[in-house]
Each structure stands twice: as C-alpha cells, then as structure tokens.
C-alpha cells in the first residue's frame, strides 16, 4: 500500500514536468521501475490512475519498463543479479528492502566474497523517463 506514496510522487512530478514543458495534456507517461523494491504493479498502476483523475495526466497512456537489478561488489568487482540473492530472503527482509532499498546491505552479501559493500548499479527506485 505504500505504492500509493510512490504513485503520488510520480503524478505530482509528471504534472510539474508537463507544466515546465508547457503541455496542456500528458499523452504518454514513461516510467522506469527497478525490480529491487518489488513494487506491486497492479496497486501502483491503479494508484496512478486514481490520483490522475481531474488532472492533465488523466487518460494518458502509461508505459512501464521494469528494470532488472544489477549489483556490483565494491570489494571484488563481482556483478550479479538481484534475483539471484532475492530468493534467500525472508518476507520481513523483503519488506524492509521494499520500503528502503538500501537496507539491502543488511540482508544481502556479495555471493563471491561475502562483502556487504556493494552497489545497486541498476534497478533501484522509480524514475520518470519521459512525458509527452
């Protein structure tokens, strides 16, 4: 349900951006959604639609690109996919990362060298890629 908070941020941002671009109506909203937060896309999409009602974002097409997450170890250089480590997490751990992705450093280690000092190189957060 905190997907609503993220949706609200997206809707507000999109409208702000449209105003800067002098758009009177948003035809397309293009979002990049990283897999780290495991966002519930159904809730998220529904929330965006609901919050768009009565705004210049209403009725616009929304395109989502789900971005696989790439983790890079600062210690040994190893690169691995989020999903590789995701399986081993408990529900509680998944939920913590769902809210604050950086808590990943509490619950995951580099599979090669066991370091917690790695970077979420790709696949973190929600970004607006484009509006039209």
């Amino acid at each position, binding site marked *: 349900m905190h997907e609503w908070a993220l949706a609200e941020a997206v809707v507000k941002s*999109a409208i702000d951006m449209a105003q800067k671009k002098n758009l009177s109506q948003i035809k397309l909203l293009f979002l990049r959604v990283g897999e780290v937060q495991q966002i519930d896309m159904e809730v998220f999409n529904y929330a965006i639609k609901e919050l768009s009602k009565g705004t210049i974002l209403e009725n616009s097409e929304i395109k989502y690109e789900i971005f696989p997450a790439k983790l890079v170890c600062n210690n040994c250089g190893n690169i691995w996919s989020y999903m590789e480590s995701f399986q081993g997490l408990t529900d509680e751990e998944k939920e*913590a990362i769902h809210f604050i992705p950086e808590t990943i450093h509490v619950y995951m280690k580099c599979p090669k060298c066991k370091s917690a000092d790695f970077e979420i190189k790709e696949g973190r957060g929600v970004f607006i890629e484009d509006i039209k």
Partner: protein
Amino acid sequence: MTHDPRLSIIDKRLESVKNIIAIGSGKGGVGKSTFSSLLSLFLNKKGYKIGLLDLDIYGPSNHVILNAEDKYPEEEYGLKPVNVNGIDFMSIIYFTQNKPLIMRGKELTDTILEIFAITRWRDLDYLIIDMPPGMGEVLLDLIRFIKNLQFLIITNPTKIALETVEKLINFLKEGNYLILGLVENMKIKDGNFVKEKCQELNIKYLGHISF
C-alpha cells in the same frame, strides 16, 4: 531527462509541519540524540504536536532512549510514523532488525530521500531531526532538500568538541542557514568559555545541561 519523482513530493510531505529543527553538532557523542528525544518529550508535554526523525543511519539511538523498539510503522498510503508517548517517530531501525547497516554516501542520499518521500507526517508543530556527526551527505542533503530548516547546535564544554562544532557553525553561517542557537551539554564545572565562543561566533547561547 530522467527525473526522480521523490524530489517533487518532499515539500508536500512536510507541508503540514510548522517548524523543522535539525539537532546538529558535527561532533559525535555530545548528546544530540539524548537531547532530540528529551526535547521532543518536553515539547509534547507542553501541548505541541511533535515528530521525531532519527537520521543517524549508521547509529540510530532515539529508539533506545524512547524505548520504541517493539513498534513498527503502519502502511497507509505510505508509512505512518510510530506513536511513542504521543510523539510521531520514524527511524531506520524499523527496517534493519537492529543489525549493522553499512553504506556509502550516495546511498545515504537515497535512503534519506526515500524516508522523506514515503513518510506521512500529520500536522506537526515541530519536526525534530536528530542528525549524525560529520559534514557529509546527511547535512548536505537536508540543506538541499528541506525548506525552512532551522538548526539547533549541541556541544560539550571541551576544546576537542568545539574544534569540530565550530566548523559546522561556520559552514552554516557562511551559507546563511538559520541557527536557533547552541546548547552546552554535559557541563561539569563552572566556566564561561562556551558562552564566550557563542558571542565570538555571534550565535545565541541557549543554556546548559549538567552532566
């Protein structure tokens, strides 16, 4: 033209907060967290609506001082802070199971942004922000992202602490950030040198707390 939507929502999340006060020092162990918790309790007793946000990501402390370890923020169109003795409280501790959380600076920025983007503060008279030591991301990002931020500085009455506290004060003064004043904590013996330092730096000496 990739845009991070969190940047657009922070003002909205804080729009019902009348005063935002960051408890800072630059120096560690001078009582920032103790003071943040006690100030929150005190103002709450006085009838003000208080929020307390622990932004010491590596070493959160307020949950210990307030005994707020067994609660959890509720999910409700975002996250509702935990209610502790009438104070609305948020801390990274609710996501770490009290285990070590290391991270680099860029990720500190992301953590802070995420917390501000998803935490739903209700109407507050004061949001007290407990800061970590240092002059890195947490300080720089608070300044960057939070409007109408006011600073309250804490020190202890030692030359070693003041050496660092003075740096924070000078940095804030150069940037024209609002400093409410300085609190001298852990005072043991009589002496005026912290008060005199305040005069020299032209900031308000707010009083002392005994050791």
